[in-house]
């Protein structure tokens, strides 16, 4: 079951590069958030109520509902439908993300550490690297926030891989921090859209002397 879920998660990464529609990218983020909840829920050996509430908050509520809704609102306000500006054609990007996933598997299996769950580590690594790649290849700043969210999903999987558990208060602080950062980034994207008339990085080059 877990392997199937992780494979589906890896497939969502490829879908990010197959689609040019912004709405689909947001939906894929919601799918990843839901998958993360199921994966974390199954992975919990001892269910502690506070831990469960936290995971529910972080994955289903924040990653699968609040952030996608917020991003959709920004997308509609700024009339963003299709991405036309990419540094690398999407066909090559699909090949590259596939190579990233394969390379991550080999890397994870070569690490082999008693304290690390290799299957999670493989998907976590590919998600983090895939997210960074997604951010780099897109010229549109809206997709940069999607890229950061993918990397954060990778970080969540990594926490499952290493079994790292933070105290409840600290986890809450981290969760609120991430949520606030995403909301503020969203607000700034909105302001850039209205101030510069577009969201391309090429219009953000006035600061160099």
């Amino acid at each position, binding site marked *: 079951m877990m392997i199937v879920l992780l494979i589906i998660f890896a497939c969502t990464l490829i879908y990010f590069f197959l689609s040019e529609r912004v709405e689909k990218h947001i939906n894929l983020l919601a799918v990843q958030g839901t998958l993360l909840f199921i994966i974390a829920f199954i992975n919990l050996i001892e269910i502690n109520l506070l831990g469960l509430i936290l995971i529910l908050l972080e994955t289903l509520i924040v990653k699968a509902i609040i952030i996608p809704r917020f991003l959709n609102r920004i997308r509609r306000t700024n009339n963003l439908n299709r991405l036309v500006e990419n540094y690398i054609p999407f066909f090559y990007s699909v090949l590259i993300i596939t190579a990233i996933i394969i390379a991550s598997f080999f890397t994870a299996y070569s690490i082999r550490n008693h304290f690390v769950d290799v299957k999670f580590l493989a998907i976590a690594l590919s998600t983090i690297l895939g997210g960074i790649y997604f951010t780099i290849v897109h010229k549109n700043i809206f997709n940069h926030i999607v890229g950061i969210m993918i990397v954060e999903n990778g970080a969540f999987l990594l*926490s499952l891989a290493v079994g790292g558990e933070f105290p409840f208060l600290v986890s809450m602080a*981290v969760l609120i*921090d991430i949520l606030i950062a995403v909301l503020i980034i969203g607000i*700034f994207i909105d302001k*850039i859209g209205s*101030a510069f008339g577009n969201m391309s990085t090429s219009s953000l080059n006035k*600061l160099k002397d």
Partner: protein
Amino acid sequence: MALLIFFIISALLALSVFSNKNRSINYSAASVYSLLHISLSVYAYLNLNSSDSVYFKFDSLGILLNGLLSIILIPVFWHSRYYLERYIHDRKMKGRFISLIIILSTALSSIYFADNIVIVWVSLEITTVAITFLIYHERYPNALEAAWKFLFISSFGIVLAFIGILLLSVKVSNAQDSSLSYTHLQAVAQLIDPLFMKAAFLLLVTGYSIKMNIFPLYPATVDAKTIAPFPVNALTSTAVLNGGFVAIFRLYCIISGTESAVWANRVLLIIGMTSLVIMSVQLFKVKRFSRMFAYSSMEHMALVIIALSLGKPGLYAAILHIMLHSLAKTGIFLHYGQIRAYYRSGWIPDSGDYMKQNGFSAIVYLLGLMTATAVPPSGLFVSEYLILRALFSEGYSYIAIAIIVLLSVVMYVIFKYSMQLLYGKLPDNFQKDKAIINKYEPVSQIILFGLVFYLAYFTPAFVKELMNSIVQSIN
């Protein structure tokens, strides 16, 4: 409990002025906060090495840097008054500015005293949010661009740092409150897998490099300082850089006790040298004073990282350099505010003939310039000399010679631009009737530059004690 009380009062003060339109309430809140901050520094010193509010500890480094912030905050709040009266006309925005400075300073104190790697991470993220809004305070397109770049790259860096924390938590996390405390991590450092330790170190240093204005994430910081209001720059070029240093230093304390210590030293040396080379080249292209000073901060932080890479032999010099740079750069950025007010522009070609037009201020600027570029008898000359001496004694003669060459280039370029300001031709579009001069404004800078000299040549015994105790904290 002291820090918890400090956080609560600070939050209340920040909230009380956030949308406040009354000028006297804003400045009263700033004064009360300054007093509160000084009280915290004194309390921390009196309770040296004791824990506080579960996740915090009053150690020597925290006390020293928090004390510095207490000193810096006084002129920053004082000059914020001039800034707000000259450039900000919306009364609500004036309160917001003071409120954001309070939030930023509180988050910085939290970084200095935190004994938990996650608390440092969370506090750094709070500084990102506060700085972003401070950069965008004047609400014009260039400010929006700078704020966006700073926010985005900082957020990216913070995610990388979080991944680093996760890697560091392998094996050491046991879900207890202290599991990710620096004290605990230092104690179990030998048990952490070297591969994970190195990966965590690299990710955390990369993530925090934006806060310390060094390679690789430095561009967003330089852009931010080019645009940010001058009182904000006086904080982001000093106390925030120190916050980045604390985050990296505490990590260094963990790795220095393991077999990866030599590797970490090399990484820091490469980062420091790369930063120094990049800034020396970039400095030739600058056309704005604020950008020039931002690169100057990058130079000093590069020197600090190089000194840190030497371990114990360079640490005393690094700490001294951090302290003196903070005071010198605060003065320089506050003076930049006066240059901007006089010429109604921050561009170098828009300035000229400062010595003749505004003699007293020009002499203060020259004093600041000599202090910041470490021209003898500047205090920074002492710390730079100590760093170079440590490099020679540790067998890094080639690196030391390369640094001397690069610092000479930096000094030449900064003096070349400054000569335009001091003795260059007055621009044709200069309107003397619109120039703003306040003869009392340079006083704070004279005090700050004087402090740099005093701390370097007549270091008080208690400061020396704190610095020596920091040196003893690494293996």
